[in-house]
């Protein structure tokens, strides 16, 4: 079992389209490192509110992208660390004590969508990726530690 211990600074938050656009305006001078820039994934309307979808990055990384009912977006590793299967995008989203979550569809462990941390097992976490919407298109940071916004 792989355990990802994420530094707090690497955490990415969900970005609403409008705030993402604003963030992009605010920080035009800090582009992502070359070669790991945001990758377009799909149109926003292709994502069902309240569910996730999997995306395949050019380097083979699998990302689970979740769209909530308020149109906030989250991107995490698609790999369920408890089983090794790439299925996190198929989990049920919700919240625990107000923190947005996704439950693994296999053994139902619950993970925070914001920090990636497993709320049922403090030693385990999912990698969190940057995600934004630009011109109606969902884009995901190719590197977990490279923020796009």
């Amino acid at each position, binding site marked *: 079992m792989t355990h990802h211990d994420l530094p707090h600074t690497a955490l990415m938050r969900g970005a609403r389209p409008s705030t993402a656009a604003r963030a992009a305006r605010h920080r035009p001078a800090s582009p992502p490192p070359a070669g790991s820039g945001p990758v*377009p*994934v*799909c149109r926003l309307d*292709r*994502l*069902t*509110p*309240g*569910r996730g*979808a*999997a*995306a*395949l990055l050019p380097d*083979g990384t*699998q990302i689970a*992208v979740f769209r*909530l*009912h308020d149109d906030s977006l989250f991107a995490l590793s698609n790999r369920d660390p408890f*089983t090794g*299967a*790439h*299925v996190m995008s*198929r*989990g*049920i*989203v*919700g*919240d*625990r*004590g*107000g923190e*947005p*979550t996704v*439950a693994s*569809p*296999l*053994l*139902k*462990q*619950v993970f925070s969508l914001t920090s990636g941390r497993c*709320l*049922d*097992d403090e030693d385990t976490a999912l990698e969190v990726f940057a995600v934004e919407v630009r011109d109606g298109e969902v884009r995901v940071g190719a590197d977990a530690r490279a923020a796009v916004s």
Partner: protein
Amino acid sequence: MSSKRLVVVGDGMVGRRFLEAITERDPSWQVTVLAEEPRPAYDRVRLSALFDGVSAEELSLATDLPGVDVRLGEPATAVDRAARTVRTATGAHPYDKLVLATGSSAFVPPVEGADLDGVFVYRTIDDLEAIKARAEGRAAGLVVGGGLLGLEAANALRLLGLRTQIVEFAPWLMARQLDEAGGGVLAQHIERLGIGVACSTGATRITAAEGRLRMETDRDGLAYDTDLIVFAAGVRPRDRLARESGLDVGERGGVLTDAACRTSDPDVYAIGEVAAVEGACYGLVAPGYAMAEVVADRLAGGRATFPGADLSTKLKLLGVDVAQFGAADGPLATTYLDPAAGVYAKLVLSDDARTLLGGMLVGNAEPYPLLRAGVGGPVPAGLADLLSTGEVEAGLPDTAQVCSCNAVTKGDVMGAIREGCADVGAIKACTRAGTGCGSCVPMLKQLLTEGGVEVSTSVCEHFAQSRAELFDIVKVTGITTFSELIARHGTGAGCDLCKPAVASILASLGGGHILDGEQAALQDTNDHFLANLQRNGTYSVVPRIPGGEITPEKLIVIGEVARDFGLYTKITGGQRIDMFGARVEDLPKIWRRLVDAGFESGHAYGKSLRTVKSCVGTDWCRYGVQDSVKMAIDLELRYRGLRGPHKLKSAVSGCARECAEARGKDFGVIGTENGWNLYVGGNGGFTPRHADLLLADVDAETLVRTIDRFLMFYIATADRLQRTSKWVESLDGGIDYLREVIVEDRLGVCAELDARMAAHVEQYADEWKGVLDDPEKLQRFVSFVNAPDTPDPTIEFETVRGQRFPAGTAGRPQAGPVLLGTPERKR
């Protein structure tokens, strides 16, 4: 195609197991068996039962093996590997593949006089018959050997009425399994039975005089006068044929094989006690059975390998419980000795005293199942109590494993409750109990009650209401969406507990496709993809086969679909066929073929009606009194697609013989001379329960009407994930109350229940057809939203037993020992 010739040398327990396996897996082999003994295979493990009133016939393992040429009393004399022929005294048998299953022979130490009349070994029925004949009218017997076999032989002599003496060369009894203290306690028990025990004693010479025998020993002046002597001091592999034909043998004997039980000649296999698999011989029957299965699989084209053997044993020797499991020795040990009670226990622990490595029990083996299962896990709590009393109390002891997925004991759970865990979610987070298969969650609730915590019936943190209350709210308010329900009656955004529960309520009350609109987001992944998620991220597919009846044409379609999409197929317990390993993007293509052939969704993925099993009933059966197949089909078609708090299973038997096992079902129907009996609330699973009789001897119309009401009343009032068995138990007044409500209509709700079922039957539509007809619903069936045509590259398969499995299946570490045979001991 010319048939393949297979010669098996030896017809013992393992040889026979192999014959059964190979004739079943690959009947194309033309099999010849060359057997030394004049009788077909028998249960050597129970040999001493012959002196306990059991006949030789009862020990027989002979089974009808069509097409197998078993030549009893025709032992193989030589193997000519160049000519690929086995010779016997009367002929030659050519082979393409040869399996050696010659077992072992009793070891007789080189003692002068060991060949005298009255000296025996203890191995075959013939040996025992000779011993019995010799014992007739005599008084005393002596056994050389104080191991498993020796004690068994001593028991046999005692049963023959002989005064018995055991002579053992090692310093204590069962020296291979027990330590000195354990051997001592065992000896004490045996001596209480009047059997003499002399350890650290070796036989040196046997002489005969005046019809009796005298055995001298290596201890000064110690000699025994006796009437018969049995050598039971171990066995040696019978590897002569292999040695003489030039096959490699192990350092301490035995035909050397690889993990596939293949000898140094790839056309020759060895199994059972004669085999030295990767150098190791096994004197137990279970590993031998495992080898038999391995070779049968290989000869059928598979790739099985010997999984290794668990040598744990538990047996009653001379009335004394003896058990040994895992390691017999290790860095640390904790022991318990009560000489007065004759109880000894030793547990071997890791050097940090946190992990149980193994141990032994003498005099009381009650804790054996628990301890054996716990090898490799944490040291059980309350060890001293467990070892001193050895008792499993009426309630569960703290050491009992509650969650076997994560090896969590009751003690762990109670500790968590004492530390403040007040609901199942908290226990899960704290102990991990219930986070695996989930079958212990009901027990966690019980433990919460036992720990003084009042268990809330709230669905989850988002809804203070129980499922039944939410059902009523939805029914009364007419709310049709989750977002409206949670906004008006709950808090937060929902979770994986309340969302599927509400989706099920909406489906029960509203109808419509489960993937319509906002409902799609509520569904568990199984419902979301209308298939069952498996551990590697693929799905399984189960078309409905009502009543288990299927035409050859439809069977062929299933076979073709499985073949074309590379699916693993397995017959389910519910009389249908499960196809595993389907990639998410293949699901619509698979279902297009199935729907075109007339199949419908089997709802194996839903908390819904699964199957209605049936026996063949009056159509074919000589005993059937009712047409169970037709009834099962009618019921399955009536209730297909019905969603509830949990899955629903049913069965119909055509007579009281109950071949369909209807009383293990949520609702079971059994045909009688006068009509039908209806049973409800049965369950298999984690807590089996026989269904209760609700109605007797009713006609079909009454039967169906009552089932309608039973199901609808359950759906309206049960808790989330509460099966009917627990639900019936939870009703105040139980089955009698249920009868008052749904038969006598005490609450006046029957008309509504009837109407609701009528609506369900009318509104039913196949969910998969609904998906195939809707391009928008089809969109979700991709592995990647940005690469719809790319399958998940991490999903890989391998072939085992001729079918596709998730990669890593063959080498997958097993949670426990793989037991392919019975756990009996063999000499």
